[in-house]
């Protein structure tokens, strides 16, 4: 057990290391490009050389990488080219806003998709099962940017119930959070519900469920006491992995609704070639993704005794 956890954490560290090398190679390897991005395309060759010298870019690449990684580990991400302030000053508030968005998405996603998935999987092939299955295919087929368009057309332009942007310019307003959360919910719901359904359907065919039914236990009790506990192990992993998925999803949603979050920051940075912001955002995104995957693996071994004791 301890071996397994330390293995997973070791893999997480290796992944972060490899990602940092790749990121460095892609974005920082060529000093000339860095100077052009930081000082702008119209800067003189002389000023670029001076800047490169002042920032230690004439050192060999491996040494620069070491310094770069050291700064990263201590939270010094450099200055944003566009906003002229340290990246960390922009990054953490943005990340917090995205966390709020993610929290509310999960707060609706988990109960609804688990409940519907279990209901569908309880009686495979029933009418309810088919409705839920086809419904989840339809919701996963609508890309987020299309559902933002559809939902805005209904709730913003036609019914005029909700605001069309979520910039929170006059303080936090829950009303502005509804559409972004709804879009993320719709996109993720189908996948989690289908996975829960598959897991539940599989459990329902096992011998111990048949035994429980045949020995005359009430159906309610069979489901609640015997089936659910085993059927919810797989969806746990699926939900943890949705965090990775959500990191992609927030980019689209935040961009559309002008929500001041982490995804929008990464996108703006890449459109403006704001180098240090891209690096910081990418590292944070991968860190969150890898951490959630590691937690999913570790949690899974806790939940599933067959892995824990083997």
């Amino acid at each position, binding site marked *: 057990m301890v071996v397994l956890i330390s293995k997973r954490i070791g893999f997480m560290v290796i992944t972060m290391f490899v990602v940092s090398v790749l990121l460095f190679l892609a974005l920082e390897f060529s000093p000339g490009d860095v100077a052009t991005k930081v000082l702008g395309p119209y800067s003189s060759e002389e000023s670029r050389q001076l800047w490169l010298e002042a920032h230690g870019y004439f050192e060999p690449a491996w040494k620069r990488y070491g310094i770069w990684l050291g700064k990263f580990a201590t939270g010094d991400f450099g200055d944003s080219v566009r906003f002229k302030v340290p990246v960390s000053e922009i990054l953490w508030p943005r990340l917090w806003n995205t966390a709020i968005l993610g929290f509310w998405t999960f707060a609706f996603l988990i109960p609804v998709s688990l409940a519907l998935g279990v209901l569908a999987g309880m009686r495979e092939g029933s009418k309810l099962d088919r409705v839920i299955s086809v419904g989840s295919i*339809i919701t996963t087929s609508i890309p987020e940017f299309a559902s933002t*368009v559809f939902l805005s057309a209904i709730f913003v*332009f036609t019914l005029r119930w909700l605001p069309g942007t979520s910039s929170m310019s006059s303080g936090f307003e829950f009303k502005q959070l509804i559409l972004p959360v709804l879009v993320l919910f719709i996109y993720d719901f189908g996948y989690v519900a289908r996975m829960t359904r598959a897991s539940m359907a599989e459990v329902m065919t096992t011998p111990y469920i048949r035994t429980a039914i045949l020995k005359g236990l009430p159906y309610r009790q069979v489901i609640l006491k015997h089936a659910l506990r085993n059927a919810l192990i797989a969806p746990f992993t699926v939900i943890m992995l949705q965090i990775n998925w959500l990191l992609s999803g927030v980019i*689209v949603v935040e961009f559309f609704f002008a929500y001041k979050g982490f995804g929008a920051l990464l996108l703006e940075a890449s*459109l403006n070639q704001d180098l240090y912001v891209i690096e910081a955002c990418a590292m944070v*995104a991968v860190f969150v993704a890898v951490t959630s995957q590691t937690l999913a693996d570790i949690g899974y071994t806790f939940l599933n005794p067959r892995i824990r004791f083997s």
Partner: protein
Amino acid sequence: MAELVKTLSPAPSPGSALGRAFKSFSLLKESPVGMIGAGLVAFWILVAIFAPLLAPFDPLATLKPMAKPGTEFAGGGTFWLGTDHLGRDILSRIIFGSQTVLIYAPLATISAYVVGILMGLAAGYHMGWWDVILSRISDIILSFPVLVLYIIIIATYGASGAVIIVAITFASAPGVMRIVRGLVLDLRSREYVAAAQTRGEAAMYIMLVEILPNARGPLIVDACVRLGYVIITIGVLGFLGLGLPPPDPDWGGMINETRKMAMIFPHMTLFPSIAISSLILGFNLLADGLREVSLRD
């Protein structure tokens, strides 16, 4: 003796493989959901092929800005779905946009499959170091949030058709590799593989001729689902302003260009959204139907 050889090497010949693929498509008739999916996909393929005949206007011509759906054009014809902010006919742009998406999405998917299949065959058949290295590489790539990966690649190398295909290949091949590897690990212990090894066939021949055709069932289903995701990806990139450069019509880009006017002219974003959603839905329903049919026999 002849009979013995027959029972020892029951690897299906290519002819019967084609026949069976055809059969599973004709079995699709029994799945109404799959048939709807096949119909949607076929519809868009036909639209893409006959785009020049179907489109009422030139998709790039600026005719009459911000016309509502159904407006008559002074020069003859009707803007059935209206025009965009630059006065280009939206119906024609959607029709030609289907070409863009149905060229780039399959190309990117095929490219991801070629790389993923080769990786998966090597990892699953040779095992050992091949497997360790290839699996670790794909684990690392898969731990990236996909869109973050695309944004970094495109921010570094610029947006063009080739970069988009390479980026999608890079991000999707590891997923294909995992599936292929799992299938190969199961198939490599079959008798017909042992027979081929005994005949002294090269590893490459065994992987491509003996193993790969027998792994095709799950791969076809996965390809349909993946194609749907690739279409979403191309749409998302266009929507975020990272897609194919304008002015060629691209559904995601169309939504991005006009979304600020959606308050007054919802038709500009609504119709491209319906187009892309229906195509993705088609592939997903088709995949679901194929899965249902393949589980039946």
